[in-house]
């Protein structure tokens, strides 16, 4: 289905220019990556119900699992951070609060991702 009007096509990407397209693509890319990664995690995590540390480390440190966990962490916090950005921009109407919340959300996402990846790497030793 073609949803763009002839006028819209003539005017091009609008005020957001190429940057808006880049943000749009980044949102979809992280979302697509999360489909297989989260389904894999859910199917694996179910078997960790009631597990002890030895069993958990066997799973978290084995084969490609640390790599998949790190990819999941990156895609998850990247996606979460962009999603919260949209919600903040839509519902917070005070410019200063918007800027402060966006900074906190983005730095918080970086911190959580770095801390989680560090933990995953430590589990492999």
């Amino acid at each position: 289905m073609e949803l763009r009007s002839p006028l819209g096509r003539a005017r091009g990407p609008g005020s957001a220019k190429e940057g808006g397209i880049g943000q749009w693509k980044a949102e979809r890319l992280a979302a697509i990556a999360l489909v297989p990664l989260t389904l894999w995690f859910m199917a694996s995590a179910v078997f960790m119900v009631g597990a002890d540390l030895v069993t958990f480390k066997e799973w978290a440190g084995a084969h490609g699992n640390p790599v998949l966990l790190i990819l999941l962490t990156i895609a998850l916090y990247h996606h979460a951070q962009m999603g919260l950005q949209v919600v903040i921009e839509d519902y917070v109407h005070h410019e200063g609060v918007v800027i402060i919340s966006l900074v906190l959300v983005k730095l918080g996402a970086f911190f959580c991702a770095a801390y989680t990846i560090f933990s995953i790497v430590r589990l492999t030793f």
Partner: protein
Amino acid sequence: MASGNRPLSPHLQVYRPQITSMLSILHRMTGVGLVGGALIFTYWISSATYGPEAFDRAQSILGSWFGRLVLLAVIFAFYFHLANGIRHLAWDAGWGYEMPTLRASGVVVLVFSTSVTILTFLAGYWAAGVI
């Protein structure tokens, strides 16, 4: 942002509830809620690096009745956000905008997320040896 007269996001209470609008706001609510799920994920993974006591504590917190209630909500939010997110990707590709298709895909999302949440919980109980 600078002007106070710009149109605001929809005031939900002035519209008659419909499956399309309700699922749209549920997508946002589950998305925000799943940030909590991400933090639980980080807590769970990182607890394992602090030794057996810390990991066992995390496991027993998540396995308590309150932990299971939170996980039930997170897991439903996850399956809903996943299924409805795929619905969004289909729209991005230009598919599924006809009203009957919109309603049908919404029902599919709800049935999928509810049933797979129950299946996941049963699998968890089975893995724990409870059933």
